[in-house]
C-alpha cells in the first residue's frame, strides 16, 4: 500500500449507502449462529463483487485491492467453516454424504 493512500478513509465511488444493510434474522429462526455466519458470508460476497467491479475500472487503486484481498481471505475462512457444519454452498465443496440435495433452496428461504 502506498503512503499517500493511507490517510484515505473511504474508497471513492463506493459510498457507504451502497453497502448492504441486511434484514434482521426472522424470529422463527432457531439457529442464530447459522444466521450470523450467513449474514457475514453475504456481506463479504457482496463486498467482493462491488470491489471487483470497481477494480475493473480502477485497477491501480491500492486500497481497494487490499480490501479485496482481505475480504477474499475472510470469505474463504468463514465459508469453509459454514459448509462443514451446514452443508455445501457450491458443488465445489467435497463432502462424505451428498448434502447438496438438502432443502430448502435459496428461493424457498434456505440460506437466507
Amino acid at each position, binding site marked *: 500500500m502506498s503512503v499517500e493512500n493511507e490517510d484515505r478513509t473511504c474508497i471513492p465511488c463506493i459510498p457507504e449507502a451502497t453497502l448492504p444493510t441486511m434484514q434482521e434474522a426472522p424470529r422463527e429462526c432457531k439457529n442464530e449462529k447459522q444466521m450470523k455466519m450467513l449474514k457475514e458470508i453475504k456481506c463479504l460476497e457482496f463486498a467482493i*463483487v462491488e470491489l471487483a467491479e470497481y477494480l475493473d475500472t480502477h485497477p491501480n487503486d491500492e486500497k481497494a485491492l487490499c480490501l479485496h484481498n482481505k475480504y477474499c481471505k475472510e470469505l474463504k475462512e468463514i465459508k469453509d467453516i459454514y459448509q462443514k457444519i451446514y452443508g455445501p454452498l457450491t458443488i465445489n465443496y467435497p463432502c462424505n454424504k451428498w448434502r447438496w440435495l438438502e432443502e430448502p433452496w435459496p428461493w424457498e428461504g434456505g440460506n437466507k
Partner: protein
Amino acid sequence: MWTYNKILQYPINIKQTDPRLAKVIISQYGGPDGELAASLRYLSQRFGMPDQTAKAVLNDIGTEELAHLEMVGTIVHQLTKNASIEELEKAGLAPYYTDHGVDVYPVSAAGVPFTASYIAAKGDPIANLQEDLAAEQKARATYEKLIDLCRDNPDVLDPLKFLRQREIVHFQRFGETLRGIQDKLAEKKYYMNKMN
C-alpha cells in the same frame, strides 16, 4: 463457466402472499429492462469489446445480473406461493396461470413475453456501452415505479431498494468504461513506414 452459489445476493423473506405485486415485479424478470435482458445483453456484448476493462466490466456486471434475476424470481415466487385460484384471478394472473402455472416465466408487467431484441448487442463498442448506460437508468426507473407500487410491503421494498442501488453503481462503471474507450479512440495515431 459459472458456479452456482447456494445463497441469494441479498436476503428475501416475504411473509405475505400478494399476487398483484408479483404481476408487476415480474417485469424485472422478463420485461424490456429486466434482469434477464441485462445479463444476456452484457454477456453477449463481451465478445466484441476492444479493451480489457470493457471485457471485464461486462463480464462481471453480466454475472451479477444473473444473481439479480434469481432475486427477482424469488420475489415473484414468494409473492405467489400458496395463493388461491381466486387470489390469482383477482390479480389478473389467470392467463399467466393457464400457460405457466407457478413457474416464473419471463414476461413484462403487461404480459408480453421476453424477446431477444431486448439483448441489443450491436457489434459496436460505443453503441453497446451507450445502450448499457441507458439500460441501467431504465432499470433504475422501473425499480422506482415498483417501489411506489409496493410502498405498503416492507418485505418487498427492502430487496427492491437494494436492486435499485445496484443499477446506479453499474451506470457509474459503464460510464468509466465508455470514457476509457473514447479516450483511446481520441488518441493521436501515428503510422510509420519502415525506415531504410
